[in-house]
């Protein structure tokens, strides 16, 4: 907090007004509406509504298709985070080893960050669509019965790869920064003690990277939960047979497509609770003492 301040009385409110107005109109008001709607039941024409307490939540949480969507989301998020972080860590350690060309490699590796999730999904779909994708064609010619339009696991694999691909840049940049922050003297000490290559990585480098890894795990989970709607919507549409229907996709589908307002609102509120929990977790536990170069 600054000890020195300007003495104006009205001005600060005027300065804050644009942000506060937007926040109320587009954040708090809709969020309170979601809370309200999650506790009423409306007839399909929106003419009558009656207060039903927590019935909508009970319906949602006991609905097998919601539980299924939750499982799908967890599997999807974990796989996306693992694949993306694994690849990024491998690339970051490689970048740490090379002396020349680091800038060149970085320039080429940050491209996917700029690609919209929906477009990232479409790029992978172009390659792996069974009707016209050249890579799908190659898979089939080599005896893999590849058809993500019918096979749920293959559809999941496709959206995970697209989602992880897009996130590689982000994870790469943070891992590189994390690696640079490790004191060289520690690595030197380890190598004098005879620890080489793999051993040095797993016993010295990886533990010291833990704060970065943990931070990225949270960020990637949030990304996979909320920012991948475009990928699901453009690649699989939640199919086949809801095999890739995530929670966010289901809120959209139930509310916007099937117009089931009470259920959609209750799902929104559950998602809000998940975001609040993740944000609180991030603020409370994620180590902030990582030094970025």
């Amino acid at each position, binding site marked *: 907090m*600054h*000890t*020195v*301040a*300007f003495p*104006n009385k009205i001005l*600060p409110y005027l*300065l804050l007004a644009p*942000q*506060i107005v*937007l*926040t109320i109109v*587009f*954040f*708090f*008001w*809709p*969020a309170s*509406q*979601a809370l309200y*709607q999650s506790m009423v039941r409306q007839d399909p024409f929106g003419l009558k509504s009656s207060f039903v307490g927590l019935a909508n939540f009970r319906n949602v949480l006991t609905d097998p298709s919601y539980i299924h969507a939750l499982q799908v989301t967890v599997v999807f998020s974990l796989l996306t985070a693992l694949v993306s972080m694994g*690849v990024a860590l491998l*690339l970051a350690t*490689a970048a740490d*080893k*090379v*002396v020349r060309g680091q800038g060149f*490699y970085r*320039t*080429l*590796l940050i*491209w*996917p960050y*700029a*690609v*919209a*999730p*929906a*477009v990232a999904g*479409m*790029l992978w779909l*172009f390659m792996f*669509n069974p009707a*016209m*994708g050249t890579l799908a064609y190659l898979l089939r010619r080599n005896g893999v019965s590849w058809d993500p339009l019918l096979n749920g696991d293959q559809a999941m694999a496709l959206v995970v790869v697209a989602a992880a691909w897009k996130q*590689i840049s982000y994870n790469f*940049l943070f891992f590189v920064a994390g690696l640079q922050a490790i004191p060289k003297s520690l690595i030197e000490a380890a190598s004098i003690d005879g620890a080489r290559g793999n051993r040095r990585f797993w016993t010295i480098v990886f533990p010291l990277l833990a704060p970065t890894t943990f931070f990225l795990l949270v960020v990637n989970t949030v990304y996979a939960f*909320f920012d991948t*709607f*475009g990928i699901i*919507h453009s690649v699989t549409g939640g199919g086949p047979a809801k095999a890739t229907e995530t929670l*966010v996709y289901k*809120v959209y589908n139930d509310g*916007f497509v099937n117009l089931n307002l009470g259920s*959609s609102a209750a799902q*929104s509120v559950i*998602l*809000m609770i998940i*975001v609040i929990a993740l944000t609180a977790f991030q603020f409370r536990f994620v180590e902030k003492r990582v030094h*970025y170069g």
Partner: protein
Amino acid sequence: MIEKRPIASLFGHFILIIGIIIVAFPIYYTFIASTTTSEAIIRPPMSLLPGGHMVENYTEAMFGGVERVVGVSLERLLFNSFFVAIAIAVGKIIISFLSAFAIVFFRFPFRMVFFWMIFLTLMLPVEVRILPTYKVIVDLGLIDTYAGLTLPLMASATATFLFRQFFLTIPGELVEAARIDNAGPFRFMRDILLPLSSTNIAALFVILFIYGWTQYLWPLMVTNDAKMNTIIIGLRRMVDFTDASTPWNYVMVTAILAIIPPILVVVLMQRWFVKGLVETEK
């Protein structure tokens, strides 16, 4: 380097080159597809070398090709995306700059209440309040308008935090000196704060431009009229695997044009991009 290890370094280059192939291949594949004919695209395997129809595809897609498919010209889609991305980035920066300025350099009742209100928006991404926010837009008559596409995405806690964080590092003496010289708050903002914040603003701009350009769920909901689509929504509407008449060459051209501008921004403003990425997450 601790030891001279040419083999490790060579291995590093090898891994990185494979990484670049993985990262670049989907984009390369789409680029190749955008230089060939629709017939060649739907009959795999497609050649992985550029076809001879690049100029033809791009000019046709630009001049009427895309318009025949989705009822809106490619340049209009591009314009919409540019407009939305820049409006969101600039709007967010201005709004956040002003509110952070108020919170750091003034003392007034309910200051912390406002601060927490802004903080709470972190926990309410569009995805969790889809329907009610849509309803607000409908009630305000903002469907199919640029205001509807941009305003709801302009309130941002992260940008406000970044500015607040930075303002707190500005020594109080500077404020005092300004006040002794009879500079009012606006003078202080314009002549001292703004120049000091320029790198932060550049860094935020890159991140927010990408954020605006890559929006999907929101423009999908608030645009019914094809003329208001962003290029990403337009692209999505062109892609139809069940329709035999889908002009895949135009689809590929549109996909390339949807990813080139943000990639250019990230690559050309790389220094600020990395700074922005790291700082907004702190």
